[in-house]
């Protein structure tokens, strides 16, 4: 049996309302497991992908793992209600993001997932089951604007920088590459936007980067850039940030599927 495990952020979160690239790719496999979640950072993406692979690897003959890495500054944190950075704060951000999404997408009702597919993005297990706020669970957040999110702003202002974020993402890409190698899994990856490549770290921090197998990268210049160059605004939803179904389908058929076929 041939299985597909995919990971990523909202660009990889397939729903009935908006099918994403992995939906189209799944047709080539007997079983598929999509772990992408809206707003997820790379630290949570790698955990969810490794967790999923560990669950299924003994039950299938072959696994292709395909990851579309997310924004380098997005963070994961294990927390609960009495922590300074707590699920309540993060839920406020999720609601803020949702309001912003609705503002940018007048047809938002057509785009959001069905109720049963909606994940409480503030406080969950590794498998995204909701957790009580007085228990520790996984949360994740993005660099945000808006005064009501001052604690998140404070974190980013004081204890985050792009070079540190770049190094972490680089280490995750490398670690997933080695994990897949250790477990006989075929790994293919790309980026959702081209921010990762725009960072210029000092040479001495590139030790992991220099050991990444870029022949497994199907889109270093990012999916978003590809859709923009090939399809223009017709490849995007009305927020001009997320590719629409046509954009996802084209990207899968023109980039990912041929890449995987040619790599084997």
């Amino acid at each position, binding site marked *: 049996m041939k299985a597909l495990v995919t990971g990523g952020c909202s660009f990889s979160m397939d729903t009935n309302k908006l099918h994403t690239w992995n939906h189209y790719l799944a047709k080539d496999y007997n079983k598929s497991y999509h772990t992408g979640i809206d707003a997820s950072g790379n630290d949570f993406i790698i*955990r969810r992908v*490794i*967790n999923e692979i*560990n669950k299924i690897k003994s039950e299938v003959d072959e696994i292709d793992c395909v990851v579309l890495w997310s924004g380098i500054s997005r963070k994961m*944190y*294990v*927390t*609960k209600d009495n*922590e*300074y*950075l707590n699920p309540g704060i993060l839920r406020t951000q999720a609601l803020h993001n949702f309001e912003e999404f609705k503002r940018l997408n007048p047809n938002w009702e057509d785009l959001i997932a069905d109720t049963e597919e909606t994940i409480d993005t503030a406080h969950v*297990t*590794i498998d995204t*089951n909701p*957790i009580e706020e007085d*228990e*520790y*669970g*996984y949360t994740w957040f993005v660099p945000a604007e808006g005064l009501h999110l001052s*604690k998140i702003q*404070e*974190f980013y*202002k*004081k*204890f985050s*920088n792009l*070079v*540190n974020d770049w*190094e972490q993402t680089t*280490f995750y890409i*490398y*670690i997933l590459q*080695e*994990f897949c*190698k*250790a*477990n006989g899994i075929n790994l293919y990856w790309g980026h959702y936007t081209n921010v990762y490549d725009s960072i210029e*770290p*000092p040479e*001495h*921090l590139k*030790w*992991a980067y220099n*050991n990444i197998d870029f022949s497994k990268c199907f889109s270093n210049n990012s999916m978003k850039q590809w859709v923009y160059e090939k399809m223009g605004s017709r490849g995007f939803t009305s927020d001009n940030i997320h590719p629409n179904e046509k954009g996802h389908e084209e990207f899968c058929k023109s980039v990912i599927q041929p890449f995987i076929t040619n790599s084997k």
Partner: protein
Amino acid sequence: MNITMKVKKILITAGNSISTDNKNLHTWNHYLEDGYDEVYHLGADALGNRLIVRRVTEKLLSMNEPNADIDVVILSCGLSYHHYISNSKQYLNSQQIVDVAMRQLESLKTNEPTLYEIAKERGEIDTMTEANSDQHIDIHGNVIDKDLYAYMYFAPMLDDKTVKEYYEKFVNTINNWEETTFAILNLQELCKSRNANFFWGNSLDTYYNVYEERIKYNNPHVAWAYDNLDMERCFCMQGMTKWTRDNFSKSRGFADYTHPSQSAHKQFTKSVIQPFIINSK
């Protein structure tokens, strides 16, 4: 004529101060060296687990020894030791940590001159000064210009307001435990892909205690990485310091309040690590 190729044996060790071998206090990894053709000790005072894993990863990457028998042995450190890539312009930067160390040294010199002299004679002052001057480094431990981005690392006990603010607001034990577990899992899988033998233990009992008291029953949903660790590779879950407490008197087993003595290091290696490695092969 029979020609037998001798397989090169390589040892890579890492950890924090409990794994930092020096002439004043030989540590467990010094006593583990026998029988290896090449030895690399990557431990450093105050290194956190995520940076320990990075240093071992880099060392494995830099080696081109497809036919060697490589043993990677780490003693995982305190959960709350963190690292950050920073430069002199950042809110949290390494100069602060060096300043704190220097202030503590001056205070010792002024308020406890006898203790200061004893520490100086033992070489502890030099060790501390060297350790803190190295707080802005590349992955190999070379000191990097403070204006460039580089690795810095720190612990919560540092008497610095920025470090204290970081720990008070944005750090908690369960998150630390989860990150340490994921780091160990990463190294386990890396060793598998690089055909190296992985062995690990804990320096303190904190990791074990947090699991038993706060994860196992109360927050099992953050233990998915723990459940994927190969526990047959762990030679000391409850920590070397606990082993020392159980097997030595306080005066003979410890060099100071927290660090095992040379005798304890030697005995721990002979009684625990060496037999474990031999039996695992």
